[in-house]
């Protein structure tokens, strides 16, 4: 898309890189339905970084894989809504169409580079796989491309390193190789699923800095899936909080991490042990667990653990409360002006 050089008097109607609309997914196993996602909606603008935050069982990884269009596809009878990649629906696309989009339009970085790379294949072949799957590359072209990609992600001495096998790299270097493989096809959308969870903090920082730089330089959009609310500040433009397959809150990262509106987000932040600030020997624990996922949730999925739950929280699905132009919480308490949280 070309941009006018003058100030944009009329906002250009841009197609979002990703648009998820009322997505519900269910998996059937042993005659039991598991409702993994329920009515998830959000948009990812071009060049934007959206963080999807949630604990185990929140559905964050399934959501990532559904956008990527790989892995076990849910039973189509039990999937509703739409997952649009620049307007093209991933849910209704054929397996072949989804395969052709993977790598060039959307790509993924996984948590554990040790297991997501093939241990028996030299690095260079894996880095250029998304390109060589589509068009014939001479060995020379392929190797040159791999060197270029490894250099771009800061692997030292790439000419020599392209012939190495995954186990010859440290964890941090291996994750750089995973990133190189993901961005080699120049995708519009990069999904990073817990990309630094397996790494030391000193290395984590370098890998996240690299992803930031790639996104800014290339203009690709990014979805950062994580359980760690600490990572987001200064990195994700917006943050979406997922719980038991539902979006509880979405808004600018600054607001979500410093002035969250949903009780779950508030409790989650409070439970993180802090290195800065006052020492807390006793952390406010969040007892209980996820509601059963084998039936559709009535009301708010967090109601059973919520300290301020009201009767309707258990029975009626909470409304989307607009707290700021870009900040929405799905919460009855936020909807009630008496609580003083609504604007």
């Amino acid at each position, binding site marked *: 898309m070309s941009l006018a050089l003058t100030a944009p008097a009329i906002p250009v109607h841009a197609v979002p890189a990703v648009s998820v609309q009322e997505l519900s997914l269910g998996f059937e196993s042993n005659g039991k339905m598991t409702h993994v996602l329920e009515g998830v909606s959000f948009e990812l603008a071009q060049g934007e970084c959206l963080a999807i935050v949630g604990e*185990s069982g929140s559905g964050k990884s399934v959501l990532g894989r559904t956008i990527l269009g790989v892995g076990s596809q849910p039973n189509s009878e039990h999937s509703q809504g739409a997952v649009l990649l620049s307007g093209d629906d991933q849910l209704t696309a054929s397996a072949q169409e989804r395969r052709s989009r993977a790598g060039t339009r959307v790509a993924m970085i996984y948590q554990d580079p040790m297991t997501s790379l093939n241990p028996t294949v030299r690095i260079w072949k894996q880095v250029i796989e998304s390109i060589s799957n589509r068009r014939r590359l001479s060995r020379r072209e392929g190797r040159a491309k791999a060197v270029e990609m490894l250099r771009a992600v800061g692997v030292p001495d790439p000419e020599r390193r392209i012939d190495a096998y995954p186990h010859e790299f*440290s964890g941090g270097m291996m994750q750089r190789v995973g990133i190189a493989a993901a961005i080699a096809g120049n995708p519009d959308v990069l999904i990073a699923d817990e990309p630094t969870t397996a790494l030391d903090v*000193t290395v*984590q920082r370098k890998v996240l800095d690299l992803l930031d730089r790639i996104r800014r330089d290339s203009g690709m959009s990014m979805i950062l899936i994580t359980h760690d609310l600490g990572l987001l500040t200064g990195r994700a433009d917006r943050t979406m909080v997922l719980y038991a397959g539902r979006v509880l809150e979405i808004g600018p990262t600054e607001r979500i991490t410093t002035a969250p509106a949903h009780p779950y987000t508030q409790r989650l932040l409070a439970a*993180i042990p802090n*290195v800065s600030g006052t020492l807390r*020997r*006793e952390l*406010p624990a*969040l007892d209980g667990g996820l509601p059963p996922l084998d039936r559709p949730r009535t009301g708010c999925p967090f109601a059973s653990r919520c300290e301020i739950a009201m009767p309707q929280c258990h029975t009626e699905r909470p409304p989307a409360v607009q707290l700021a132009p870009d900040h929405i919480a799905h919460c009855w308490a936020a909807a009630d002006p008496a609580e003083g949280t609504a604007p």
Partner: protein
Amino acid sequence: MRTTSLPEKTPSGMGPVDGEAFVTIRGMEVQFRGPKGTVHAVDGIDLDIRKGSVLALVGESGSGKSTIAKALVGLVARSGGTVSVGGVEQAPERRNRPRQSRAALQMVFQNPVSSLNPYQKVATIVAEPLRVAKVPADSRVKRVRELLGAVGLDVDSILDKRPGEISGGQAQRVSIARALAAAPELLIADESVSALDVSVQATVLNVLRRLSVEGGLSMLFISHDLGVVRTVSDDIAVLHLGQLCEVGPSEAVLAAPAHPYTAALRAAVPEPGIPLGEAKHTDAEPPSPLSPPSGCSFRERCLYATAVCAELRPALTELGGGRRVACHHPLIPAAHDTAHEAHAKENSA
């Protein structure tokens, strides 16, 4: 049985007291030989754990945290040094220690579900150490209920469950209850909360802290998470490539690290709503344990390294206030330096 009936408190009622060392580790060395050479996984470590206190071991992967724990328990044989627990010398290998010594050191591992037998009920799992200790069956049942209560579990609902039927946080508390069943003198928690969700992690940390403060249980707590370490520990020991960088009271060390490596770790911790400042280490890769650098093992990543750091391995020296640091250019000066110099150094850093 002292540990979970929670009778006596430490004199101050909470937190550390200047008790004598209960666990004493001197000159511990562990080496692994492989085809590419020998790795000094633990390279001459001196550590004390005071009675009723929690000592945290921190450091990156490969720093030797878990190896120290395993050598302490005797799962890995140390090649040098001594270990004494409650004044009793411990043989390098577990099989050479008397049963009482083996029971005295109990470990809780990272992954709660895989460290419990999936076919056994919780009641059976927790009763196992009691059966080994030949506790009669009727008092066993009573004791299992006490232990599960002490770790904050709803006893009646959990007794007949199997590991697959309970949450990760519950499973980790069952692991702790099982460890406590052996009436340990020292609990070793190796990344025991790392696999847990934040909301659940808080519950387990609260349980561990209570066992220490109210139950007088001594603990070695291993974690890569400085926030977790600060919450639960009294003292902290920072490891880099099998060597100690810094030891001291957790609050003091984390508030003002003396070793550049501690400062680097501290600066890399991401916290919600707080932007990360400048990195406090160079871009150099962590060194290979097979060919560690000469002198100080951190020098290639250190912002303050000079020629002397490549020549001489720094010795642990006293800083005062119970703190020790192994650095030629510590960020806070040794006890005899003036406070003014300390301030100037911190500002320039």
